[in-house]
């Protein structure tokens, strides 16, 4: 198909021809085209279907405000629904499909909705589909959901990369039209650090769409020259294809740069889009204005477009929507379009101007005081019916109608911090109000300055004001300076189905019905009719609807209300906000010092926070994880096992007040802890709940090393800094995390000492006498490597934790394995660790769940009343010390074949099973290969006094009821002989 709607001129590269496909038909276009201009060039007017009535839809605009010309761009896992054809930059091999139509765009089955539109009036669904109740999910809703929606997702993962970036500048200029360019030139020449961003792939804004000249050159040439000068300035950064999407607090702007949307395929490693966070001292909004339509009967047919869009297509893209064009306007701007199209040889059927005093023109007919009252053409405009002042009607045969109802300043970003625009009677439009985001000023058409000369001046002034410039300013170029001449005109009287929101099919009638039913505030209007909720966010429809609401209410527009806009300025792919934080990179991955060794051993890993920890180490012969875990437990308790516990938080606490400080943050006392000793510590939140537990080892009078649980390492450090800086600012104590500095391994089991004696350097005596339970100290290993040794035990066995600098952790683990061969040493993972701590009755994450007190945990006596410690006072509240509060207990099945389920609830052995009779719940459960039974820990009302009681463990969720016995939580070695051995 040839581009038979091409005109002369334009800013396209005619020397290159590219191919693209729309609905599986091939067409040609030129670089510099958008998909929209290329379709028009090829005489394609029908592009999609509307949301509700599935009415035929063509292009309305030439910019990002487009409500109608939306398509599915690209194919396969790169398919992009709802993409505005007006902003798709043409490239060779571009592929697009029409959407929201079936079986085909020309014949859309759901077009039938249009026939019943009268029954599908605004909000009709709130009044029906209620009987029978069950039918909603089964019948009504599925039908509605299938009919609704617009484009479709591929349902495949987005394959592209996205980046996030951060830029800082003195002045961010948003929009590179006349005012933006002039502002950038002014600030740039003055040496200011400027970022100039525009959503278009070509700077210039309206200058690229107009036929007039700036100084002695064409407007677009002047723009190109300005851009050339700006790009030569090192202090000015130009960001094309970059939409500033939002104005956030304190001068931070969000911007989306489309670095890869204009190419067929991305080079490896290059992002499709970049989300920029731009930190600004000042920002200048030069976003221009958007032309608004006039509502009249059947004003939604393909071919009916904004007059300024027709002008853009003709002047910038050298395209006309049709060879026969009519104009409907209430202002002089509409006449400009007629003149430009006429100059390019397009036949102007007539300019229909609602003003009796409209300017005449001798090249074509001007129908003064006339209105368009109806149109014809099922899939595209064919005839326009015009009512003349004398009451007669004229029918114009044309393929395109340019509509101009005046211009609305693009105030969107001024509203992003809830600022409200104010009404301007001369423009009959909202202009930026006074409560703008701090640091933002507005220039050019966005500020209601509608002439080119005015925009240039206003841009310069804006830059001068924002940057507080003085001295010589650049000379302003000469440009058109016409005053706005228009007669506010929103819709044609007596029309029924005159579209306001063309995508969501909201008509004048719907607005009137909304008022009639009491939905009279603007927000009610929007929510009831869905006006302005479509992908264009009502950029072309909100104000007209408001004007009509005002008329019905008999109020002025400002009395009726304003409508504000929310970010983003135009829709942004969710991937762009995610950047690279997805898939495996969603969160950083933290590896333990023995990770690579464990991988070689074929360990199975588990995520613990951001850490990867070895869960168990299967042998080739083992087919089920339980075999591995049982073996690791048995062998550790029988001989010796090694576990990487580096992930436990380690905090270095130093200072003359270190001990006093720990006395405050721990419920139990530390002042009297001897040097060379370690003590278990329970940390409470100020509300009295257990926050974390760990050990504190005193390496010197003024030096402790504190451990935290893996999960709470960060929050405990933060808490300790709070206590240090905010509560006791004069305590001499210094904190720093050493979690990653040391590779720390638990060496547990009766042979642990023997194993360690093989690597600990001989000058260090670690016999039970010299290095008893809870001892700690600095030592060296393997011939002089500095190390720390702690005699602490989570497993309940004779055990140590040994720490060396992380870089040697891998080597130390390998050494422990070889030296341990004679004892049959096993590495054990988090599962075995968990089993052994349950066997020993140690509380862990499942028990320290943020709602349990020391009393609940069986550690009530640890909370010292003799000193001031965080949480001790509030832990005494009446409900927390009632006689039957939950107490931690051990639970085992009466018959050892039965299984304990964590998350199960405890019920009395007889009586009803329901919430009212709940006695407690199971927090942790495991199979103990030592007891050959499933065991568990849990919380039970008055549990301390119910040892030996038989109860029912119920888990209706997993369909389970087990008879259990309440026992002490210390299943193994309750006296602790082993760990003191």
């Amino acid at each position, binding site marked *: 198909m040839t581009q038979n709607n091409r005109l002369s001129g334009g800013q396209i590269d005619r020397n290159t021809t590219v191919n693209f496909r729309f609905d599986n038909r091939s067409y040609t276009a030129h670089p510099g085209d958008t998909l929209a201009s290329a379709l028009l060039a090829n005489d394609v007017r029908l592009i999609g279907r509307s949301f509700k009535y599935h009415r035929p839809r063509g292009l309305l605009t030439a910019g990002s405000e487009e409500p109608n010309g939306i398509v599915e761009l690209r194919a396969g896992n790169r398919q992009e629904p709802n993409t505005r054809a007006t902003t798709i930059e043409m490239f060779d091999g571009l592929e697009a499909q029409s959407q929201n139509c079936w079986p085909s765009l020309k014949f859309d089955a759901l077009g039938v909705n249009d026939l019943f539109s009268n029954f599908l009036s605004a909000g009709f669904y709130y009044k029906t589909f209620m009987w029978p109740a069950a039918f909603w999910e089964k019948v009504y809703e599925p039908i509605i959901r299938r009919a609704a929606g617009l484009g479709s997702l591929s349902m495949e993962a987005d394959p592209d990369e996205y980046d996030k970036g951060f830029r800082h500048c003195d002045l961010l200029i948003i929009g590179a039209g006349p005012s933006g360019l002039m502002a950038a030139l002014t600030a740039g020449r003055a040496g200011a650090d400027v970022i100039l961003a525009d959503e278009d792939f070509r700077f210039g804004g309206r200058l690229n769409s107009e036929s007039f000249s700036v100084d002695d050159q064409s407007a677009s040439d002047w723009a190109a020259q300005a851009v050339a000068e700006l790009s030569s300035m090192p202090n000015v950064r130009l960001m094309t294809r970059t939409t500033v999407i939002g104005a956030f607090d304190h001068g931070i702007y969000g911007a989306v740069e489309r670095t890869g949307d204009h190419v067929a395929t991305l080079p490896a490693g290059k992002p499709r889009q970049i989300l920029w966070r731009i930190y600004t001292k000042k920002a200048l909004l030069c976003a221009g204005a958007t032309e608004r339509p006039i509502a009249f009967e059947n004003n939604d047919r393909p071919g009916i477009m904004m007059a300024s869009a027709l002008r853009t297509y003709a002047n910038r893209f050298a395209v006309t929507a049709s060879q026969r064009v009519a104009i409907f306007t209430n202002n002089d701007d509409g006449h400009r379009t007629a003149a430009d199209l006429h100059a390019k040889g397009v036949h102007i059927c007539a300019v229909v101007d609602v003003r009796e005093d409209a300017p005449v023109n001798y090249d074509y007919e001007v129908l003064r005081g006339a209105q368009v009252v109806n149109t014809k053409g099922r899939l595209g405009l064919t005839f326009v019916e015009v009512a003349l002042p004398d009451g007669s009607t004229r029918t114009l045969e044309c393929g395109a109608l340019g509509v101009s109802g005046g211009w609305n300043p693009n105030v969107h970003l001024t509203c992003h911090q809830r600022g409200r625009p104010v009404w301007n009677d001369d423009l009959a439009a909202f202009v930026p109000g006074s409560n703008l985001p701090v640091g933002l000023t507005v220039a050019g058409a966005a500020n209601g300055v509608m002439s080119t000369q005015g925009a240039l001046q206003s841009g310069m002034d804006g830059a001068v004001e924002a940057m507080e410039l003085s001295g010589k300013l650049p000379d302003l170029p000469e440009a058109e300076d016409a005053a706005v001449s228009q007669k506010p005109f929103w819709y044609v009287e007596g029309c029924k189905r005159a579209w306001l929101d063309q995508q969501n099919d909201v008509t004048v009638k719907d607005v009137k019905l909304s008022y009639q039913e009491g939905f009279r505030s603007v927000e009610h209007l929007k929510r009831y009719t869905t006006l302005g909720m479509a992908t264009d966010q009502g950029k072309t429809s909100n104000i007209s609807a408001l004007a009509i609401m005002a008329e019905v209410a008999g109020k002025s527009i400002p009395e009726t209300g304003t409508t504000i806009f929310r970010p983003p300025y135009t829709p942004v792919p969710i991937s762009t906000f995610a950047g690279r934080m997805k898939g495996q990179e969603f969160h950083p991955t933290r590896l333990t010092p023995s990770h690579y060794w464990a991988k070689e051993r074929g360990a199975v890993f588990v995520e613990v926070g951001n850490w990867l920890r070895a869960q168990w180490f299967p042998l080739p012969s083992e087919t089920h994880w339980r075999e591995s875990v049982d073996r690791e437990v048995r062998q550790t308790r029988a001989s010796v096992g090694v576990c990487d516990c580096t992930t436990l938080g380690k905090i270095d606490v130093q200072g003359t007040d270190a001990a006093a400080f720990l006395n405050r943050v721990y419920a139990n006392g530390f002042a009297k802890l001897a040097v060379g000793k370690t003590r278990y510590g329970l940390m409470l939140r100020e509300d009295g709940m257990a926050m974390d537990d760990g050990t504190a080892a005193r390496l010197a009078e003024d030096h402790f090393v504190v451990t935290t649980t893996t999960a709470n390492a960060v929050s405990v450090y*933060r808490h300790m800094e709070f206590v240090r800086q905010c509560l006791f600012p004069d305590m001499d104590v210094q904190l720093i995390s050493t979690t990653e500095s040391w590779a720390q391994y638990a060496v547990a089991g009766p042979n642990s000492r023997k194993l360690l004696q093989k690597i600990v350097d001989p000058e260090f005596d670690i016999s039970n006498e010299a290095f008893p339970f809870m001892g700690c100290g600095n030592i060296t290993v393997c011939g002089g490597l500095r190390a720390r040794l702690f005699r602490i035990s989570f497993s309940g066995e004779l055990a140590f934790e040994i720490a060396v600098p992380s870089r040697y952790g891998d080597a130390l683990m390998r050494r422990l394995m070889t030296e341990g061969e004679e004892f049959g040493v096993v590495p054990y993972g988090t599962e075995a660790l968990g089993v052994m701590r349950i066997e020993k009755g140690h509380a862990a994450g499942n028990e320290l769940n943020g709602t349990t007190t020391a009393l609940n945990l069986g550690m009530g006596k640890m909370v010292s009343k003799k000193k001031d410690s965080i949480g001790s006072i509030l832990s005494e509240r009446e409900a927390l010390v009632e006689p039957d509060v939950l107490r931690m207990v051990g639970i085992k099945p009466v018959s050892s074949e039965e299984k304990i389920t964590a998350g199960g609830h405890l019920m009395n052995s007889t009586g009803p099973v329901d919430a009212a009779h709940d006695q407690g719940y199971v927090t942790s459960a495991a199979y103990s290969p030592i007891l050959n039974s499933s065991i568990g820990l849990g919380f039970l009302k008055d549990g301390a006094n119910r040892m030996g009681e038989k109860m029912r463990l119920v888990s209706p969720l997993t369909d389970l009821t087990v008879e259990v016995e309440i026992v002490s939580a210390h299943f193994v070695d309750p006296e602790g002989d082993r760990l003191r051995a």
Partner: protein
Amino acid sequence: MIINHPLLGPRDASEFTYLGDASLINRPDWQADNAAEAFYEYGYVRDNPAGKHQELWFHEAGDRSWLVVTRDTTTHEISKVELARDVARARGRSK
């Protein structure tokens, strides 16, 4: 948001962790007769003003300073940023 760190200058608020009302500095005396009531008020009751609010932020991804930020909860305008340690001392806290 941007917090103008008294030592480091303007920093993105995303580097900080928020705790809440700076009254959390005023931890009651554990030995006072009304300690129970005082700690309840301290722990649970807030002014929650619509306007100027003194609040605690921790520079987690920064220099680990706790800051007292005076910020308007209706506009987010920040009028003052101080090191919490200085504020605590000024409020008479010591050891």
